[in-house]
């Protein structure tokens, strides 16, 4: 089974990369972009352990390694098209 994990900086934590990208988009003439937040996307392949168990394990993985909850938040998506 597949899972997707999105890790992003918390609101309120300055994202210098996001700011620089927003400025670059503006230089390209792509207007109307109010904010850009840069994060990480991870695609995880798991054994068939059931959605609930997968979520439990990945939540632990996020808390202990994949995200630093001092500065980041995370979202887990289980299943969907691999």
């Amino acid at each position, binding site marked *: 089974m597949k899972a997707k994990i999105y890790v992003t900086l918390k609101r309120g*934590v300055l994202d210098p*990369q996001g700011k620089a990208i927003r400025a670059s988009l503006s230089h390209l003439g792509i207007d109307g972009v109010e904010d850009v937040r840069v994060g990480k996307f991870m695609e995880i392949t798991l054994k068939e352990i059931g959605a609930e168990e997968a979520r439990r394990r990945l939540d632990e993985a996020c808390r202990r390694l994949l995200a630093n909850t001092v500065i980041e938040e995370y979202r887990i998506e289980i299943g969907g098209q691999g």
Partner: protein
Amino acid sequence: MKTAVLVFPGSNCDHDAYHALKHVVGIDAEFVWHKRSSLEGFDAVVIPGGFTYGDYLRTGAMAKLSPVMGAVRRFAEGGGPVIGICNGFQILLEAGLLPGAMIVNDSLRFVCDYVHLRAGTDRTPFTRGIPEGTILKIPVAHYQGNYYADEETLSSLEERGQVVFRYCDPHGNVTRESNPNGSARNIAGICNEAGNVLGMMPHPERCAEEAMGSADGRRLFDAMVAWLGERTA
């Protein structure tokens, strides 16, 4: 009196730290591979700078899981002096031995330069005899040295005397211009509540001799030796 210099895959300031301790300060030092799970026989621990595990995921995120970090935790809990320099500081943050986290420099540039630091407390083993307000000239070299903690944590650090160094100008004024990376409240180094674990982005091991442009870094290691001498006396 023996100091452990930890070595992880990607450490690159380990030899500088070893040189400063062994050949400049003149105390016994030994490299300790990160797979080791004991620090028995050591009196102090240096976690040197570098790019452990290629900074994968986050700086220090992989290294915090190395077996030696369990030993560092026990060593720190026992009151032993631990200094994490640059990537070593990042590892201590990731391991939760110090509060807060690092994000990329606000300039989005790698900064490699001499900076000035204003000492904030002499209660750590590495700043014993370096009174508050002392100005030190020590170089930084990092891309992710922008110290972040929430407001509550920052205030608590200040109230409990855990801010050990702040970036300042050559006269000791803590200004926005003298902050090389955007760190909250110009923080360059902090210690734990007990004071025995210090993390700092600047590199004292790179400026322990006058030939390096400054010998101010040596003062931290001299302080450590004096502190250890007092403790065993």
